[in-house]
């Protein structure tokens, strides 16, 4: 029998705010334990929560970016359960009136080849709500220590409909969702820092069956690759269970990405009754049109829209756009350089950025923001090449020096005498004639219609000119001479 998987993802994203969700103390990562606390975070007797409006702004932005309906009124509920990482032993969350409903995440599935755009699909969302993060337990040999620095950090829970069909789709979903959050300035989504966490609900059913199978919740998927691998593993596991005559039990399983195995954490019988009820300490929140409009004005263009625009406006090939658009800073860098370089040079600009700039940054372990090569440098470099002043080998040298020193390309060319040889000399024509005379085979092939055979003549010319011959002129001269021959 053939089986299909049905997957729903619950993604928690920490919102990047200065202070915590319900109090003024700072939110942050990597501080000494229990230093980002105050009476509210520690749930001392008598304290009260007060909503952080910046967190509301952020979740509204997330909702607008993902095409959600923003509820005109949302409220706060208490989710009651005892656990030492939860200082109040209830978590302030949104139960039956979340702020965002519906919406979707656009994903791109892998194409037939790396340089071919894949199919696009929209994964429907159920809801996005806002809540507060919990603290962290550090288990020692004989103790468990609690660090409340994370407790109270604004946290979004983004719940998809059970419409994801494969581990690859889940991977694409998270990639796209993460980029959207980073683009919106909503979160840095660093999974190592717990800024993005993912749980997956997975079931299988025979192809053609419309009812859902029993779901298993997979937890501790702490990288996007582990999400993909964990889901793939779980689908295989469930199929194996069913095919060997077993039954899937509703349970929560822990996936270990290092070993590629999972084990049961708890079964459904141990499920909590969270006793949700509206938090009497907090007022419901009204989101009016003016508030939405203000946030809408702050919404950036998202990667897929940018990709379509780059392909159209700049005639960029898919391979370049698929690198450029996923990093907003890189995309902005490209646009600045492309504009400075002028019409018709965007692809050359894109190539320099995607290949040479990325390589130099990687080698120097630098962020784009710290790069010594600025967009104006790339534009100037491309213009020098286009004008024939700089040949490609020399240009590579210029780039390396530019990356090291931050000097403008023209200055490097002048300083190091890298300018191409003067363009219309008798010497160049003589080199061409010599090459034609010495390479009868290539000439014959070219004249028989094999276009690429002309390249066989160019090598010797470059050698004779010690690399300084302008390739454009060489090409023109060869064609003129061959046509006349």
């Amino acid at each position, binding site marked *: 029998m053939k089986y299909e998987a049905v997957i729903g993802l619950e993604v928690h994203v920490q919102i990047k705010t200065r202070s915590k969700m319900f109090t003024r103390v700072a939110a942050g990562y990597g501080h000494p334990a229990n230093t980002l606390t105050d*009476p509210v975070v520690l749930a001392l*007797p*008598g304290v*009260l929560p007060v909503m952080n409006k910046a967190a509301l702004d952020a979740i509204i932005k997330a909702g607008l970016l993902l095409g959600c309906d923003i509820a005109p009124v949302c409220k706060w509920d208490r989710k009651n359960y005892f656990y030492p990482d939860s200082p*109040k032993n209830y978590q302030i969350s949104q139960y039956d009136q979340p702020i965002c409903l519906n919406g979707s995440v656009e994903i791109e599935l892998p194409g037939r080849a790396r340089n071919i755009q894949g199919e696009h699909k929209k994964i429907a969302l159920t809801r996005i709500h806002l809540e507060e993060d919990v603290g962290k337990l550090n288990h020692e040999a004989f103790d468990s220590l609690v660090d409340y620095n994370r407790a109270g950090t604004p946290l979004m829970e983004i719940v998809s409909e059970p419409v994801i069909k494969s581990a690859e789709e889940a991977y694409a979903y998270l990639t796209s969702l993460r980029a959207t959050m980073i683009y919106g300035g909503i979160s840095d989504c660093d999974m190592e820092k717990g800024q993005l966490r993912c749980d997956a609900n997975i079931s299988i059913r025979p192809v053609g069956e419309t009812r859902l199978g029993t779901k298993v919740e997979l937890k501790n998927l702490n990288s996007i690759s582990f999400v993909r691998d964990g889901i793939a593993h779980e689908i295989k596991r469930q199929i194996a269970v069913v095919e060997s005559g077993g039954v899937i039990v509703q349970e929560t399983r822990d996936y270990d990405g290092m070993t590629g195995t999972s084990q049961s954490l708890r079964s459904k019988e141990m499920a909590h*009754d969270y*006793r949700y*009820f509206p938090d009497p300490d907090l007022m419901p929140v009204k989101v009016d049109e003016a508030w939405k409009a203000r946030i809408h004005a702050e919404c950036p263009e998202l990667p897929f829209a940018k990709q379509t625009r780059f392909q159209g406006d700049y005639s960029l090939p898919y391979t370049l756009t698929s690198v450029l658009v996923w990093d907003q800073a890189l995309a902005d860098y490209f646009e600045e350089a492309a504009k400075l370089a002028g019409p018709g040079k965007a692809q050359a600009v894109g190539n320099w950025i995607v290949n040479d700039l990325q390589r130099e940054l990687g080698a120097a372990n630098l962020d784009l923001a710290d790069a010594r090569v600025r967009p104006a440098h790339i534009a100037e470099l491309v213009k020098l090449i286009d004008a024939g002043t700089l040949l490609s080998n020399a240009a590579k040298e210029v780039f390396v020096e530019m990356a090291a020193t931050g000097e403008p390309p023209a200055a490097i060319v002048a300083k190091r005498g890298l300018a191409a040889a003067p363009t219309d000399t008798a010497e160049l024509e003589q080199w061409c004639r010599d090459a034609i005379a010495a390479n009868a085979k290539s000439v014959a092939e070219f004249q028989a219609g094999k276009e690429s055979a002309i390249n066989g003549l160019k090598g010797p010319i470059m050698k004779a000119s010690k690399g300084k011959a302008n390739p454009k002129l060489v090409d023109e001269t060869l064609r003129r001479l061959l046509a006349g021959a």
Partner: protein
Amino acid sequence: MPPLHFSTIAELSDALAAGKTTSVDLTRAVIARTQAVEERVKAFNSYDTADALAQAAASDARRAAGLSLGPLDGIPVGIKDVIAVTGQPLTASSKMLANFVSPYDATVTEKLRKAGAVIWGRLNLDEFAMGSSTENSAFHTTRNPYDLERVPGGSSGGSAAALAAGEAIATLGSDTGGSIRQPAALCNVVGLKPTYGLVSRYGLIAFASSLDQIGPFTRSVEDAAITLQAIAGHDERDSTSVRIEIPDYRAALRTKKGPWRIGIPREYFGEGLDPEVAAAVEKAVSFYEKMGCEIKNVSLPHTEYGVGVYYIIATAECSSNLSRYDGVRYGHRSADAKDIVDLYFKSRAEGFGPEVKRRIILGTYVLSSGYYDAYYLRAQKVRTLIRQDFLNAYDEVDAILTPTSPTPAFKRGAKADPLAMYLCDVYTIGVNLAGLPGISVPCGFSSGGLPIGMQLIGQPFKEADLLAIAHAYDSAHDWSRRTPNL
């Protein structure tokens, strides 16, 4: 003028301003009185004489420099032990918090400090404000200064008894279902529960968040106006505190003169009401009638559901509010827990008293999956109807007059059945459910010499009118100025 420890804020602020006394002398007098009677009254959980005298000295220095902060400057104000005071114990009269010291000030504490008050003592209560007699305190039962064999009422029994016994000049309490008004009535003092949202709850240990409100105990309605002035107002640390203009309450006592339309709800004068209480309250009604007020019968038809609704909503909220007392970060931690679950069970089993446990269990039950709609949601709907009853009545009247408590103070141990105890608040609960302001004003004594109080219920955020109506009675009678023989 009576002895310093039995004087009103109004009298003392004049005397302080005129240089006839000092805050240090006044505070010494209150300390001396406390040391003389406290063994019998047991109103305090703790007090810090050095701290009080230092505050008093600071007040005198301010006054000497011409920088007096107003009528409360230099006045010792006792604080119910559920309101946070920096560096002082904050116990809620529970073993759970027996050793907890607050690292922060409640907003009302801060506001009292800004008004110059001397923050004085931590006053006993029913554990976590759950009870009507102060017998549920984990530490000791406070006595009624008018009869030491009787209870002072509760939950703010310590606040009422301390004031009645001359151990403070004013006190703060909290009122969730009558916890200010009922002990005020039983101890012959004025007790005001403001409109929900008028006074910040930040720093008040929560019992039932949607019902809790802090308010003053004083020796006169005028003193209540002075104290409310200091503590009312929006607080950005309490999302349920309301942004409104705070009027001059004390000035309103003189500018608002009536006559008013006073509503008498027949539902509050039925079975269970002590005849002597009924008679005293009827006499107060006659007073208003004689001063030209229109007395109207009004109906609050959903009154009978009040106690039931209250014990669903209050217990539901408390079951969640008290979850934080788990022995993990502070408070009582069981010494012999095996693991985290055992730590929770044992710490809470040892730390909470029986009434607190009863309410946590009840509240947990009504919020449980499958019961939520039938109990909590239904109770919230009935709560809306109860509020609507009052608002309908206010189409016809300016205030509603009722008994505060069905009976005068009862003997210690007399109400062993929790349900009998719950019925002590039958006249006060509706006010909390409706979020309204209510004040208890002394209006006589029983044949046995026990104080009787009447309750005036006002319209939302119209404390100025409510206080003016109460002041008209209080200033024409001397009940509230009588003192017990201790």
